[in-house]
């Protein structure tokens, strides 16, 4: 299990290595020695591009956590693991597409990483049809990930329909948070 400090240190290390490779200065001028690259033998992703410039780093620099997924608290879109949907819809919003682009590219860079997409629906209407909505939402997410660089064998899909709400309640504020697909790495 990575704690916050350890991941920050590894992030800085990755950054530092990147900075050196690209001939740029590191963010705070310090280099940190660290034992091994990345975590637990999973390997650290070293991007061959960056968001441009030395002062920022993009999702491409985010390292791999113990579950094979992106490090938590990276400050990038990879921290977002939930895609939300409109009522009875399985269409992904532009915001969702941006998030999934990063995850798809992450999976492309890390062929040993696997993710399970869990699809959900809000409680309205019939339960079994909602199982279908959850499945379709998860499949929509999978399609985007594949386009963005993931391989099919890195992705599994499951639907929980309305059975596992994120928020209990019978109003739109609860329902809107339950119409979702969640990315869970390492499963």
């Amino acid at each position: 299990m990575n704690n916050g400090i350890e991941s920050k240190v590894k992030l800085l290390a990755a950054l530092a290595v990147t900075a050196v490779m690209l001939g740029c200065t590191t963010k705070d001028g310090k280099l940190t020695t660290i034992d091994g690259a990345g975590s637990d033998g999973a390997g650290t992703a070293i991007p061959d591009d960056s968001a441009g410039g030395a002062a920022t780093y993009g999702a491409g620099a985010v390292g791999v956590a113990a579950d094979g997924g992106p490090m938590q608290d990276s400050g990038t879109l990879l921290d977002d693991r939930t895609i939300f949907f409109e009522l009875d819809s399985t269409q992904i919003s532009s915001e969702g597409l941006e998030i999934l682009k990063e995850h798809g590219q992450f999976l492309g860079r890390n062929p040993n990483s696997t993710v399970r997409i869990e699809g959900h629906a809000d409680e309205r209407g019939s339960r079994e049809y909602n199982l279908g909505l959850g499945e379709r939402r998860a499949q929509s997410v999978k399609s985007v990930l594949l386009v963005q660089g993931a391989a099919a064998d890195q992705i599994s899909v499951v639907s929980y329909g309305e059975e596992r709400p994120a928020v209990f309640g019978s109003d739109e504020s609860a329902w809107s948070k339950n119409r979702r697909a969640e990315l869970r790495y390492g499963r």
Partner: protein
Amino acid sequence: MEGSRNQESFQVLSSGSKPIRNGLAVLLLAVTFGAQAELQIDITRGGAEAAPIAVVPFGWLGDDATPYDVSGVIAADLRRTGRFAPIPASDMLQQPTRGAQVDYKDWRILGTEVLIVGEVSPGANGGYMIQFQIFDVFKGKQIFGYRQPASADGLRAAAHRVADMIYEKLTGVRGVASTRIAYVNVTGQAVNPTYRLIMADADGENARILVESDKAILSPAWSPDGRRIAYVSFENDNSEVFVQVIRTGGRDKVSSRKGINSAPAWSPDGRQLSLTLSKNNGNLDVYTLDLSNQVLRRLTQGGTIETEADWAPDGDFIYFTSDRGGAPQIYRIRPDGGRAQRVTFEGKYNARPRVSPDNSMLAVVHNDRGNYRIAVVDLERTYTQVLTDGRLDESPSFAPNGEVLIYATRENGRGSLATVTVDGRVQQSIRSFEGDVREPAWGPFPVN
């Protein structure tokens, strides 16, 4: 493995076991599990139109204490049909137990139309005999008389049988007091949920846990002979379909293919199940599975959601939900395949069809101006009538006499059940004392 027998350590209670849970020993003759999930049933609409009848407290001809309030059970069963309003015993001017004691004018005064009297006497082997007579008060004569035997621990069941006989004599329709219902009870939901598939008598008594899990259970479906129940369980973190033998608790996992395995429904001959499978390509479709040889046949194709199949009682059609038209509507198809035909045309959302026992109508979940309600759709004229008035009503299931539907609703933020007659006039609420109840399925007439 698909179709493998699965007698595992998973907690499935059979009729012989008496579990001790949280230190609370289960007592009683039958295996109930105490007040924890008993149901409370109240009439909420339509009681005023019921015909006044009198069920006089039955006489007891034994020496020891009265074993059971048989007439109380009968009166409650008749009240629950919504057609009869038994008057309280305190209003009765006389309490005859046999025809010779009846004075009709004492009943005409009260306006009761029907009078029921009876006696219970001890029978052989610790059993009993229930004798009852039904009288037409205004004509002043007996409609029917009968003697119903009961075993030592079967007195309540015999009382239900008597109530059904009375109901059928008075209305011409077979009663459902001797039937059972299944439903899912969920407790501890937000924090540490426990899901239980429960079977109970139609009046909510004798509740018995069939399956218990920390993951969701849904879509219980009774086999036509009432001996088995199919259901969907997420106990292995994905939807899988099981068929369980009620008497023994033994079960088979009949489908755990990749993707969704759900919406089981039995063919009228009990030999096949229709199922919804997605096979992990995201396309939910309706299949039929022959339980004897595991032959799977695909009924629907296409990239839209097809699910929630239900067989017509003559086996001619399978009805199902499809959103191929953009939003869920009901379609039907022959069990051996072919072109699907749309069946619902009123409203923007119709799902979860259940065919009535007489094959004349469907019960559906219908979106009525933003509210999810139960409606019946006449199959011949496609006329739709909304029966309920909740916001989140779902899972309708017909009683086997086709007169009443049980369904799931929400009341004060909790899942509860309710019944409504198919003409919409009488409604009852069914509340659990703990947790949510949902996913009701009304069992068939007893086969014996």
